[in-house]
């Protein structure tokens, strides 16, 4: 009953989005404002409708309705309620619905804003948003119905969207349960964050397309979507970091990022998004790069869809469970359609997108931003090539190959290093015109500071050349950023008579985007410390220990104390938990307890590391093997991951930075709009 209701509402939502598309186009072509208004209201309706659908699905998930195929696949009786809810995005059909639901929330939000002054964008924003939504909802309606139910017919039990003739509903006793890897808190919030990032990039894309179609290709669309872009970037970045944390905590390979195609699929839109975030500033300040910004946002949008496609269509792995699903070709068709039509549009409007001003110096800030864009694009090219190469190799030489971390690390590390260098120089250069002299005057102090730091590290911490270069760049960027910050605050202190802290505070408040950006730069550098640490200094060892035996790594000694195995029947998990005493240079630090959790419903093991985390390093212990029968001992794998905590610290600061940059500035914004309107009147009157 509920399932049919949910499916019904889903179908209605699908029709509503289609109506919205047609009404918007029709209303715009025939100049009927009422039609456009009707399309707008229809789009507004999608969110409540999808919320209803989602409510129906959650009801089914919570109440163990295993006659519904999706519920059967992702939940089981032993799962706690909160996991049954989050199982919503734990499977193909549900996560598609989740995607559409988030998308509709953004679409509805957009329709609610004041459209007075950009009426001509409205129909086309609606078209883009609703076409995207219709595509995703259509997937659910026609191919991946989360409400499909099991029916028993003469041919056996199969799932159907609607009750076939001569059949009875079939309800399995219990479900298969969620993949244990997805039961971790990190995995519960990681996909929503990533999806939020993905869908919120649709909004700037929609505005860009609207600008291209209407021919209003000035930077209005960028000003309108600036904040959307920042939030999109926030979610996407946070989603990526959470994914890394999740991998670190549950995948049991002692790392946070494995250059897996699935990870790269989410990383690629982040790269173009980041490039976009920088290059829009050039357009705003200097009126240049209009064409390039359009290309970037189109790329971001299509990489979002492409990423979703890669992870779901089974192109990358021929043995993937989704491989036979019909959604692969449809995703492909959708990517082809959006990419080709967007590029065609941009070519059509190319002439009207030309720059207003000229580049004056290779050291000006806009030139450096362009270099930054080049670097981000280069990293994208490396990533894209790495993902696509196995495909090409198999097609043309019949040879299956792996493109693994060594390729990515070798190819991207010089690019990342250059990017860091740029991060050090760019904040010191001015818009329009900078020279070696002015730049040199500003940068010599930070350089001296960074050299001192590197020298100290060389003497006390490491002699590895790669790491030293990395640390030098980190120090340089941090010093430059702090120096810039301090210069601003100092000037303010002098001119306004504020004390230095108030000056800092007000400075940040005055130009949130700039100083939020600086905080993001610093946080990136903290993250870089963690990455350099784990990449260059990670050590590991593995050994089988009898009780009371000791294994040592770096300064640590670990003594195997005991192991216990027990069943937690209500949750359907079997735990094997080993306890080790940890000593550092002979001094007792405490105990670590790595585990192997076995989930009865999905018949899968999870390896949960025992971790001891400090700013200096993480001690990370895995229980690799233990057979109660042999009782000879247990096998442990131990990692020391230096500095990795800086990564997580940096990501927290990163969040703070983006929130500062993206926080709405109501008063000033409104004033700015008024001012802008007045200037426009004046300039148009002058024409």
């Amino acid at each position, binding site marked *: 009953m509920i399932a049919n209701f949910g499916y019904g509402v889903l179908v209605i939502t699908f029709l509503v989005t289609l109506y919205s598309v047609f009404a918007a186009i029709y209303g715009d072509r025939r100049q009927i404002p009422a039609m456009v208004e009707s399309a707008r209201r229809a789009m507004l309706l999608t969110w409540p409708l999808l919320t209803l659908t989602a409510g129906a699905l959650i009801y089914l998930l919570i109440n163990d309705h295993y006659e519904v195929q999706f519920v059967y696949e992702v939940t089981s009786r032993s799962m706690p309620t909160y996991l049954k809810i989050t199982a919503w995005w734990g499977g193909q059909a549900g996560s598609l619905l989740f995607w559409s639901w988030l998308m509709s929330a953004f679409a509805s939000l957009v329709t609610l804003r004041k459209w007075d002054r950009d009426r001509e964008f409205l129909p086309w924003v609606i078209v883009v948003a609703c076409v995207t939504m219709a595509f995703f909802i259509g997937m659910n309606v026609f191919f991946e119905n989360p409400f499909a139910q099991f029916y028993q017919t003469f041919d056996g039990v199969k799932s159907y969207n609607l009750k076939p003739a001569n059949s009875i509903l079939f309800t399995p006793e219990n479900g298969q349960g969620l993949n244990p890897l997805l039961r971790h808190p990190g995995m519960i919030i990681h996909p929503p964050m990533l999806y939020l990032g993905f869908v919120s990039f649709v909004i700037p894309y929609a505005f860009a397309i609207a600008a291209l179609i209407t021919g209003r290709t000035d930077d209005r669309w960028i000003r309108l979507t600036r904040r959307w872009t920042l939030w999109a970037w926030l979610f996407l970045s946070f989603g990526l970091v959470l994914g890394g944390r999740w991998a670190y905590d549950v995948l049991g390979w002692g790392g946070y990022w494995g250059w897996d195609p699935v990870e790269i699929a989410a990383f690629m839109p982040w790269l173009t998004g980041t490039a976009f975030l920088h290059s829009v500033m050039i357009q705003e300040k200097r009126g240049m790069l209009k064409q390039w910004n359009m290309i970037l946002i189109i790329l971001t949008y299509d990489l979002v869809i492409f990423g979703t496609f890669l992870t779901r269509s089974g192109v990358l792995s021929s043995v993937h469970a989704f491989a036979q699903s019909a959604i692969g070709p449809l995703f492909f068709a959708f990517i082809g359609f959006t990419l080709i039509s967007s590029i065609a549009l941009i070519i059509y409007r190319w002439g009207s997108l030309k720059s207003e001003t000229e580049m004056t110096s290779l050291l000006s800030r806009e030139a450096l931003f362009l270099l930054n864009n080049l670097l981000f694009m280069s990293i994208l090219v490396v990533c894209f090539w790495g993902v696509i190469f196995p495909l090409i190799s198999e097609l043309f030489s019949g040879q299956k190959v792996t493109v693994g971390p060594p390729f990515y690390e070798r190819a991207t590390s010089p690019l990342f290093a250059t990017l860091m260098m740029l991060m050090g120089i760019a904040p010191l250069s001015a818009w329009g015109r900078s020279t070696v002299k002015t730049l040199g005057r500003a940068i010599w102090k930070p350089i001296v500071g960074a050299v001192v730091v590197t020298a100290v590290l060389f003497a006390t911490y490491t002699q590895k050349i790669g790491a030293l270069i990395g640390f030098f760049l980190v120090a340089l960027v941090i010093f430059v950023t702090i120096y810039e910050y301090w210069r601003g605050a100092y000037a303010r202190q002098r001119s306004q008579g504020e004390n230095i802290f108030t000056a800092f505070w007000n400075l940040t408040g005055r130009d949130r985007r700039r100083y939020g950006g600086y905080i993001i730069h610093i946080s990136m550098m903290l993250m870089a410390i963690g990455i350099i640490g784990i990449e260059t200094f990670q050590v590991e060892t*593995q050994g089988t220990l009898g009780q009371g035996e000791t294994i040592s790594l770096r300064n640590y000694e670990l003594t195997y104390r005991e192991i216990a195995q027990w069943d937690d029947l209500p949750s359907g998990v079997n735990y094997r938990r080993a306890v080790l005493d940890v000593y550092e240079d002979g001094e007792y630090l405490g105990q670590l307890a790595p585990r192997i959790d076995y989930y009865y419903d999905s018949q899968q093991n999870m390896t949960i590391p025992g971790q001891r985390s400090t700013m200096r390093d993480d001690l990370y212990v895995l229980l690799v093997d233990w057979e109660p029968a042999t009782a000879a001992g247990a096998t442990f794998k131990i990692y020391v991951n230096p500095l990795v905590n800086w990564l997580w610290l940096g990501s927290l600061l990163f969040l703070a930075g983006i929130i500062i940059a993206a926080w709405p500035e109501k008063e000033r914004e409104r*004033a700015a709009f008024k001012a802008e309107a*007045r200037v426009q009147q004046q300039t148009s009157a002058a024409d």
Partner: protein
Amino acid sequence: MGSSRTIFYFVLLTLVLAGFWTIPVSAQGPTPTDDEVNRIAKQLYCPVCESTPLDVCPTEACRQWRDLIRSMLAEGRSEEEIEQYFVEHYGARVLAEPPNRLATYLVPAVAILLGAFMLFRGFRMWMKPSITEAGAADAPPEPEQDPYIAKLEEELRKQK
């Protein structure tokens, strides 16, 4: 003719003897430690699971491959020989990188250089109109913003 054949047999004999000589020595060596096995397994990929290095892969099949590495190490085989064996038996996909490095790195490198070239050509074209005055490197800095924005800011100030 005859002498070259003699040399050939001599070389062959040496090789065979060398082979016989190394095997018993290494067979007497201690069983390789987990760390030695992992060092090699880290560089190889599981042939059945997608993109999982062999040293961290928890499946039964991977455990077997690690045992294989261990026994090959015990036989005194070198790292290259083990990698070679894995490629012959399980295909090139066990390597962390495609065997043909050139093709792998060439395309992105060319693409990046092409991008860089286009960017610098772009710079040159942008700067052409001002190239004559660019000789005077220390020209006074331009006003930071274009007139439109400056006017905007001015209006903003009036608002306060």
